[in-house]
Structure formats: C-alpha cells, structure tokens
C-alpha cells in the first residue's frame, strides 16, 4: 500500500534544544518520519514529551535546532518569517485547543478571516465560509458570536476555518482538549469524515490515547524521541465492524 503513496511531510533527524540556565534540554532528540498524502496521523505523548514542539516546527512556528523538514518539496527550516507566513496562509489549516476564534467576529467572519489575508473579495469569501459552515453543520449559527456558542460549536467553527483555505495539511493541537468526551467524539468523527472525503492530510497532537485511536497511524513520542509508529487502520476497522 505504501509503495504508491506520495509523501507530504518528511522529517529527517530533527533536533530541538532549549537552554535552560546551564542545562540543555532536548525537546526533540533526533526524530525521523514520513507522513503521506491523505493520512490522518496522531502524535501521542505525555506533556513534556516534545509533541507540541514537533507540531509547531511542522507548522513553521518554531525553528528547529538541527535537521530537515520537507513539506511538499519545500524545506521549512530554511524559510524566512515572511515565507513561513505565506506558506501557512496558502497550504496549511490550523485547529487549536482553545479554538482561538476572534471574539469580535461572528462565525462567518471568523471562518472567512484566513481568506481575508489572501486578499479575497468579501462576497466570495463569505460564500465560501457559508459553504464550510454548512459542511460542519452550523448553518443556523452563522451570525453567532463565539460567546453565543457551545464549546463543540466553537470548535466546529474552528474546523471550518481550517478547511476554508483548502489546505494540503491540517494541523490540530489537542483539538478536543477543552471539550467533554461526548462532543470530543463528535468533533473527531467530523474531522475524520472530512479528511477522508477531501483527501486531506491531518496531523493531530494529543495526550489522549483514546482520541489518538481515531487516526490511521499513531506516533508515540516520549522524551523527544519516537518510540513506535502504530498502524491503526486494521484495528480501527475491527472496532467499526464490532460497532456495526
């Protein structure tokens, strides 16, 4: 199966070292992996394991100390800040733990915001935002402000905002961290459905092994190293079979 897959993210020998006083802390200690197009991968680890650092580096929010990150065919680690901004604007969608919606804007405007940065005309970007809100089942809440919505609804808006830019990759940082288990499952199912339907690549960071189980592959990370990469597809199908 892997032979015909197209690699989207390649990480080679990645290190991140923080200096805390005189100590050197290895947040990432030599990480190698490849993520293919259309995959849903989760990175699981306890807090302090380096999983968030890894995600930030994949998204170009942090510079690695050493190593290579190749997304598509571009070396992220060599980009300037302006190039990184452009890269994020055009190829990446984000889903945050704390939703990070702008409180002054309603759902539509929040979803349309990344398109604003691309200089898209207002009419067009609101049309696309509406489409995305339909997709996540929030067309009744278009004009609601974030404070008027539940956590699950807010995160759906977050998902819509990540999708509206038609990204190649979506990064999700503990996307259900602020939600109860029931809504968490809803949001996870939504994300997985969309990823499968739109053939997107989704990289999710979580500390919850149960949520990680929604993914195709699970990267277990501890002390800055990948312990094992678990192919979850078979297991998941079995679980689904049981449910049916």
């Amino acid at each position, binding site marked *: 199966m892997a032979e015909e897959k197209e690699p989207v993210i390649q990480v080679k020998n990645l290190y991140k070292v923080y200096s805390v006083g005189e100590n050197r802390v290895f947040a990432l200690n030599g990480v190698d992996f490849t993520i293919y197009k259309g995959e849903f991968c989760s990175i699981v680890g306890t807090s302090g394991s380096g999983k968030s650092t890894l995600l930030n580096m994949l998204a170009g929010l942090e510079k690695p100390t050493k190593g290579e990150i190749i997304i598509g065919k571009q070396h992220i680690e060599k980009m300037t800040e302006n190039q990184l901004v452009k890269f994020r604007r055009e190829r*990446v969608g984000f889903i945050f733990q704390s939703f990070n919606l702008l409180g002054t804007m309603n759902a539509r405007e929040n979803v349309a915001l990344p398109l*604003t940065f691309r*200089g898209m005309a207002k009419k067009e970007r609101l049309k696309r935002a509406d489409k995305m809100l339909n997709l996540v089942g929030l067309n009744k809440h278009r004009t609601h402000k974030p404070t008027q919505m539940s956590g699950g609804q807010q995160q759906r808006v977050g998902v819509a905002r990540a999708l509206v830019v038609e990204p190649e990759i979506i990064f999700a940082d503990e996307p259900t961290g602020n939600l109860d288990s029931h809504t968490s499952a809803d949001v996870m199912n939504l994300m997985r459905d969309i990823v499968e339907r739109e053939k997107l690549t989704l990289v999710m960071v979580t500390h919850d092994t149960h949520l990680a189980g929604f993914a195709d592959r699970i990267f277990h990370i501890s002390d800055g190293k990948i312990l094992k990469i678990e192919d979850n597809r078979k297991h998941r199908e079995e679980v689904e079979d049981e449910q049916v």
Partner: protein
Amino acid sequence: MKLLDLIKMSISNLWRRKLRTILTILGVIIGTASIVVMISLGIGLNKSMIDSVEESGGLTTINVSSGGGDTMYYGGGMAVSMDASASGSGSNEPVYLTDEVIEQLKQLPHVTVCSPVLSTSVLAKQGAYESWLQIQGMDLEVLDRMNLPLAEGTMPEPGSSELKFVFGNMVIQDFYNPKSNSGGYWQTGELPDVDLINQPLFLIFDTDAYYQSQDPQSGIAPPKKYIGQGIGLLEGGPEDWKQYSYSTYCDIEVLKTQLKKIFKGKVIPGQPTTSSGKPRKELVYNSAYVQIDEMDNVMDIQKQIQAMGLQAYSEVEWLEQAQKQYRSIQAVLGGIGAVSLFVAAIGIANTMMMSIYERTKEIGIIKVLGCNMNNIRTMFLMEAGFIGLIGGFLGNLLSLLISKIINYVVVAMQGADMAGTTSYIPPWLMLVSLVFAVLVGMLAGFFPALRAMKLSPLAAIRTE
C-alpha cells in the same frame, strides 16, 4: 490583504475600545488646536501688519531719491571723505533724478510704473490764514493708480495748464493766523476757517523774496502771488492719519511749467546747482515713485536701483525686518502648542501599546492563520494614524471656533479696527496641521506596530 479590509479592521478595532480611543483622540484634538491657534495668532499679527502696510501705500512700491543727497544737505564729513576718494576730478556729483534717469528706471525689469515726484513748498494764503504747503507734483496716471480715496471734488484732469490741487485730509490743520496769538489747530483744537475747495488760495513760490519784502527797509518788492485752485479733498476726518494726510498733490507737468516760468533764470528753491552756483539745465526731481509687479521682486529691484547710485527705500525692507521678529514670536507660540501635541503623541503610543498587550492573542492567531507581517504593522499604523486624523480634523474645527472667539473678544475690547486680524487660520495651516497630526500619530504608533509585527505567534497563542 486588501486595503479596504485593513481599514475596516483598524476602524473596528478602534471602535471596540471606544472610551480609550475617544480619550486619546481628545489629546490629539487639544494638541492640534493649541498648535493651530498659536500659529494663527502669529499669522494674524503678520497679516494685519501686511494689510496695514498695503493700505498705506503698498508693498510693491519703491521710493527713489537722488544719490548722495544726504551729503548735500547735511554736509560735512561725508562730503569731504567722498571728495577725497573721488580724487578731485569733479565727477563726484551725486546721481540726480533727471528725466534721463527716470527713463533708465523705466527700463528696469518688473517695473510697471515709474513716476518722478517734484515737491516744493509754497506759502499759501486765504483770508487771514496762511500755511506752508508741501506740494507734490506727480504723473496724473500714477496719481490715479494710487487710488486715493476722494471725499469730495475730482482728481486733476490731464491737459489743464492751471495748477489744480488735491488736498490730504489734514492739510487744513496747518493753516494758522499769524496775526492772532491763539496759535494753530494744535493748541486750540479748532479748525481754521479755510475753505480749500470753493475759495481760491494765493500761493507764493518765491518765499525768500517774500520774507525779505516783509522788511520795509530791504526795498524789495513782494513777489507775485499766484492763484491755486483746490479741486479735491481726500477722505478722512481731522484725526485719521493716513500716508497722504498732509500731502497736496498736483499734476507734475503743470507744476514744472509753472516753476520754470516763475523762476526764469534763477535757481528754483530745493534744486541743486552747478558747481558755480548757476541753475542746472534740467530739473532734478526730489524723488521717484516706482511700482514693481510683484512683492518678491521688490528687494531685487531696490538693490539694482541702489547700484545705480540712487537711494531707494521700500516698505518691504522694513517689513522683512518686522517679519523676522514675528517669525520668532510665531516659533515660540508654535513651540508651546507643540508641547501639547507631543503629550498627545505619548498618549497615542500608550494607547497603542496597551492595545497590543490586550490583543496579543489575537495578533498571534492572525499570524498563524497567515496574515502578512507587513499587514499587521500597517493595521496598527493605520489605527494610530486614524487617531491622528480624527483628532487633527476635530482639532482644526475646534481651533476655528477658538479663533472666532479670540477675534470676537479682541474686537469687543479694542473696537472694530482690529476686526478679523488677531487670529487668522489660512487653509494651508489647516491642511499642514492635519497632515502633521496624522504623521505624529503614525510616528507614535510606529514602535508599537513594530512590536506587534515581531510578536512570536506561538507565545501569542499561548497567552490566555
């Protein structure tokens, strides 16, 4: 990002923090208004000065008189030293304003009008009263151009061979009765019983001979009296001093012919003589009235005329001196105003700084979502600029109001003479102050904007 979206975002951010924005804007309003009002006072003073100079003879005229004239009349040291330097060749005669020189003046660039002025003083009598009149013969054309306001009568017409006078409004005060001891107008405050226009005046040109004839032992016959007719009286009450108040004007051509006729073969009083004491062939004018097309050229032409060996004087020269002083007053006033705008600028910087702390997370989000760094900077600069723009605009309105009030109060205190001249806000000042307020706002917002731009998106997202 589109400019329109940027502007909308900036405005909505300002609107979100209404109270703080309004307070910051208030600072800019006060700052702008104080600068504008302070400068308007300086401009108003300057303008009223220029207006008054223009009213009293214009800023485009140069008065020219014969070169070296001072040495002739006040004598002494100067003349000696000039003689010495001129190596005794006899060519040290000053440059006189003859017809030839007048022609030369007319040839100078920017000169629109050049008229010689021939003045002479005569003794005028009417009834028991007499007075010394300073008669100024001028080109009628130039007299027209001076736009002297007539209270009654007419201006002299060309082609007349009789002496016809136009009197200044205060000429009449100089008439006195030599036989009474009451003194003139200055002591009694009563205007003499003289009718300048309807009654003829008897004029004595050869005053030397007249006084000699007063002494019966001299045996000199009193000189002939001539009749002069007043035809015009210039505007103004007995106390309104104007530049023309004490002058008596007439047609220079008529005056020239008259003088030549009266003093045939003799030296006309006030005229320079040749070295042997004989009268010169041609008349020398006392001064010339030169009009320049534009004020900016006056100093230039004045220097050229001085280079010809003539003496030249213009109001511009004095005005420039005075303006220099006004400029320093204006700078001080403007400086006082600038202090308050400076304080307002600190207010803007503070507001922007606060706004960045508050919006750290938001900035982080939009950065992660792919907002250009330049866009973030522009957005903050715009917010600061808007504060400056709104503050500058309202500040201008406020200063217009203050200016009105100042003028009103000054007029109420000092009378209508000073109307509208104390504080004057020209359109350019409004424009400049508006631009200046925007610039100050943007400058104050610059470092906060840079800070916002450089904010690490990660750190920003983590802030809760």
